[in-house]
C-alpha cells in the first residue's frame, strides 16, 4: 500500500510488478437510449482498496456488475490478472470475485447459515448444514467479534445492521478470495461494526486480496482506501491518491460545489447558511403562508412544506427518504397535512402506471372521471373531448382511441402526466417520472408543470437527476431519511445539491 502511495504514477499499470487484479478497458454500456457507461478505464491492483465515488447515475453500480461478470459490456472488455477470455459470472466465480450487494440479497425465509451455504462456492460435503453453520460463524467471529448473531435464525428476523453483517460475512465464505466488491457496505452498520469491517479489509488486502469499495461516505473512503476513482456521467473522471485527496476535491470532481474546508469552515458556513436559509424560507413563507396546502415532518430534520402554485423538488442520493415523503403525502395519515384532491405520477410506468389493455383516452381520464360523468354515468363525448384537449396540448403521438401500449415510452409518460393534471387535484406528486424520457418530451413536460403550477396547483417532484431541480422553486435535499437542507433561488444549484447529498460526511462532528 505504502509503496503505491509514494509512487507518483500509481495509475500506470506497467510500473507495478504484479499484474492488476482486474482491469476495465474502455467499457461502454447502454440501456435503451441512456448510456450508463461511457468508455470506462479502471484498474484494481493486488492488495489495494480502491474507493469508487460518484453521484446518482454516475454508473457505479453498472461498472460494479461488469467487474463481477454479471453483465457484459457493449464495447470494451474486462481482463482478469492480465489474461484474456470471456469474463462472465462463471469466470468471475472461479476467479474468486465476491460481491456484497447494497440491496441486501439475503433470502428472508432461510437461516443465516443456509444463506451462507447458498452462495458458498465450495463443494458440499456430507453434513453440509453443520459445516455451513461453522463456516459462517467463524467468519462472523473473525470479522465482527461480539456480533451476537445466532446463525440458525432466519435472516428476515434479524435487524438491518445484523443482516448487513451477514451479507458481508457470507461473501467472505470462500477459500480463495480474489476481489471483494462492496456496495455501500456501511450504510446500515453501527460505528463499532464499521470499524471492525475496515480493520478486516486491511488484513485482507495485506494478504493480496483486492477490494473495490463503493460508498457515499466520503470520509470513510478517504480514510480507508489507497486510491479513489471518481465517476461522473458514466465515466471515470479522476483517479486520485487518497493520501493527498480532500473531500472538497472529490466533491468538485463529482460535479459538486467547492466548500472550502470541511471542518471548522463548514460549521461556520452552517451558521451563516442557516441564517440565509432562514431568510429564504421566511421569504417563501411570507409569500404563501396563507396557502401552504401540505406539510409533514421527516425525522428530526426541518419540516416539508408546500404552498399552492409552487414546484418543490426532492433531491439527494436515491433512496434517502424521498419516496417515503411522496408515499406519506399520497396516503395521508398521522403528521401529514395534505389537500383532499391529489394525484400521483409513478416513475415505473410499466408496473404501476399504465393500464395496458386500455386506450389512450381511458388511461388519460381515469382520474378525472368525476368531471366527465353525470349521475355516475361517464359521458363518452366529454371524456373523449377532455382526452383530445390533452393529447393536442402535449402533442401525444397517437389518437384518443389508440391502445396505450402502441405508444412509445415517452408518449406513455406524457399520458400519465396528463392524467395527473387532467384531474382536479390540488397537489400533484411526481415520483421520478422522467427516467428514460427523451429531452424534447422532457422540455414539453417541464413547461406543462410550470403552467399548471402558475394556475395554482402545488407540484412535488422527486428526481434522481439533479439537473432537473433547476426547474423547481425550492428543493429539499434528503439524507438518511431526513431533510438536510432547503435550497431556493441562488442556492438551488446542481453543485449545492451534490454537496449537500454527502452532508453526513462533512457534518460528522455535528
Amino acid at each position, binding site marked *: 500500500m505504502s509503496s503505491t502511495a509514494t509512487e507518483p504514477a500509481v495509475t500506470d499499470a506497467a510500473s507495478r510488478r504484479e499484474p492488476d487484479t482486474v482491469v476495465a478497458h474502455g467499457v461502454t454500456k447502454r440501456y435503451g437510449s441512456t448510456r450508463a457507461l461511457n468508455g470506462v478505464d479502471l484498474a484494481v491492483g493486488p492488495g489495494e482498496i480502491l474507493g469508487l465515488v460518484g453521484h446518482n447515475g454516475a454508473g457505479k453500480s453498472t461498472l460494479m456488475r461488469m467487474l463481477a461478470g454479471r453483465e457484459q459490456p457493449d464495447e470494451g472488455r474486462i481482463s482478469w490478472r492480465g489474461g484474456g477470455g470471456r469474463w462472465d459470472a462463471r469466470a468471475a466465480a472461479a476467479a474468486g470475485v465476491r460481491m456484497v450487494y447494497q440491496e441486501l*440479497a439475503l433470502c428472508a425465509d432461510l437461516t443465516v447459515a443456509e444463506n451462507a451455504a447458498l452462495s458458498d462456492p465450495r463443494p458440499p460435503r456430507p453434513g*453440509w448444514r453443520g459445516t455451513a453453520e461453522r463456516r459462517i460463524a*467463524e467468519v462472523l467471529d473473525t470479522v465482527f467479534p461480539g456480533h451476537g448473531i445466532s446463525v440458525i*435464525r432466519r435472516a428476515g428476523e434479524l435487524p438491518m445492521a445484523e443482516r448487513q453483517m451477514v451479507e458481508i460475512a457470507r461473501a467472505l465464505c470462500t477459500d480463495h*478470495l480474489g476481489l471483494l466488491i462492496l456496495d455501500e457496505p456501511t450504510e446500515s452498520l453501527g460505528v463499532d461494526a464499521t470499524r471492525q469491517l475496515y480493520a478486516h479489509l486491511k488484513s485482507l488486502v495485506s494478504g493480496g486480496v483486492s477490494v473495490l469499495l463503493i460508498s457515499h461516505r466520503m470520509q470513510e473512503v478517504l480514510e480507508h482506501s489507497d486510491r479513489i476513482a471518481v465517476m461522473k456521467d458514466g465515466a471515470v473522471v479522476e483517479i486520485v491518491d487518497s493520501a493527498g485527496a480532500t473531500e472538497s476535491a472529490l466533491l468538485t470532481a463529482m460535479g459538486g460545489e467547492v466548500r472550502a474546508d470541511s471542518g471548522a469552515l463548514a460549521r461556520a458556513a452552517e451558521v451563516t447558511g442557516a441564517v440565509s436559509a432562514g431568510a429564504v424560507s421566511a421569504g417563501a413563507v411570507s409569500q404563501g403562508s396563507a396557502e401552504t396546502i401540505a406539510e409533514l415532518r421527516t425525522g428530526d430534520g426541518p419540516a416539508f412544506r408546500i404552498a399552492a402554485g409552487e414546484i418543490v423538488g426532492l433531491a439527494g442520493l436515491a433512496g434517502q427518504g424521498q419516496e417515503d415523503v411522496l408515499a406519506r403525502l399520497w396516503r395521508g395519515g398521522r403528521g401529514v397535512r395534505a389537500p383532499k384532491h391529489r394525484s400521483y405520477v409513478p416513475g415505473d410506468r410499466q408496473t404501476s402506471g399504465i393500464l395496458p389493455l386500455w386506450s389512450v383516452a381511458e388511461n388519460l381520464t381515469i382520474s378525472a372521471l368525476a368531471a366527465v360523468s353525470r349521475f355516475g354515468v361517464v359521458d363518452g363525448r366529454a371524456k373523449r373531448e377532455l382526452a383530445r384537449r390533452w393529447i393536442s396540448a402535449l402533442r401525444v403521438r397517437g389518437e384518443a382511441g389508440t391502445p396505450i401500449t402502441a405508444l412509445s415510452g415517452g408518449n406513455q409518460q406524457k399520458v400519465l402526466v396528463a392524467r395527473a393534471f387532467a384531474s382536479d387535484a390540488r397537489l400533484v406528486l411526481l415520483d421520478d417520472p422522467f427516467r428514460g424520457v427523451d429531452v424534447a418530451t422532457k422540455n414539453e413536460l417541464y413547461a406543462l408543470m410550470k403552467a399548471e403550477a402558475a394556475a395554482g396547483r402545488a407540484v412535488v417532484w422527486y428526481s434522481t437527476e439533479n439537473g432537473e431541480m433547476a426547474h423547481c422553486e425550492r428543493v429539499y435535499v434528503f439524507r438518511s431519511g431526513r431533510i438536510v437542507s432547503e435550497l431556493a433561488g441562488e442556492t438551488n444549484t446542481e453543485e449545492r445539491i451534490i454537496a449537500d447529498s454527502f452532508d453526513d460526511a462533512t457534518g460528522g462532528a455535528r
Partner: protein
Amino acid sequence: MTTTAAAPRRSASRPRLADRLTTGAAHGSPALLSLVALIVIFSIAVANQPGILSVPGLTLMLMSAVPLVFAAQAQMLIMSVGDIDLGIGFLVGLVTVIAATQLGANPVLGIGMLVGIVAVYALLGLLVQRRGVPSIIVTLGMSFVWLGLGLQLLPTPGGAAPEWLAQLGSWRPNWIPAPLVFIALATLVGWYLARRSRIGMRMRALGSSAATLDKSGRSLTGTRVAAYALAAGLAVIAGLLLAAQTRSGDINSASNFTLMTIAAVILGGGTFSGGRALPVGATLGAVTLGLITVLLSLVNLSSSLQSAAQGLIVLAVLAGRVITERFTR
C-alpha cells in the same frame, strides 16, 4: 481465512442445543394453533367415545388421514417454491386407479405409468419456470387430464389393488396404531426433503427470493423441476396408500384432497408466497382436517356438514394466527 483452523475450534457463535430448541420452536410457532385445534378436536372425540384411546381405536380414527398427510407434504414442497398444485386430488385418484387396474395384472406397465407421472410433473416444473406460466393454470389444466385418464382406465370405481399393497394396508401391529407409523414416516420424509437436504434449501430460497438464488449461481429451473418431481413422488405414495386402504381404484376418491392439502399447509404455518416449509405443521394441519370427519360422525352431526366444519376450522385457526402474531409483535 475460514478453513485455516485445523483443530475443530469451538466457535463462540455456534448455537447450543437450548438455542436450537428455542429457535426451532419460534420458527414453528405458526403451527401452534393447528396443534391446539387438533388437541381440542381429539379431546372432544375422546369425551364422546372413550374407546378411541386404544390401539384399534386410534388406528380407526387416524387411518383416513394417512394418504392426506403424504399429499400435504407434496403440496408443501410445491408451495415452498411459491407455487400451488391444483391437480393433486385427481392425481392421487389416478394413482389409485393405476394401482387397482395395472399394478396387479401388469406390474411393469403400472410402474412405468407411475414413473411417467413423476416425469410429467418434472416437465410441468420446467414449463412454469421457463415459460412463466402460473402454476395454478398448469396444474388446474393437468387435473382435468388426470381425471380423463382415470375415467378412461376405470370408468366406475372398482378393480383390485395387488395383494402386497392390500397387505400393507391391513398391517396392524399390536403395540402401536399403524397410521401413526405412516404419519411419522411422511413427516420425516417431508422434513428431510424440505428442511434438511440441500435441494430443499434451494427450493425454499427459490420461493423466498428467486433473484438471490440466481445470484448465487444456482439453477432456478433445476430447483423447480426437482421440487415438482419430488412432490409427484410423494403424491404417488399417497395414492398407493389410499388404494391399500380401499383395496380398489376410484378417480374421484381423493378429489377433495386438492383444497384440503392447501388448507393443511396453510394451517401448519405455510404461506402462499413461498419460502416456508414446515413439515410438522403440514402434518398437524392434515391430521386436524382428517379428524374433523371422524368427530362429526361421533357427535352425530350429518356428514354433509363436513366441508362446512372444515372450512370454519381453517378460518378460525387462521384468524387466531393473525391475532396472536399481532400480539407477539
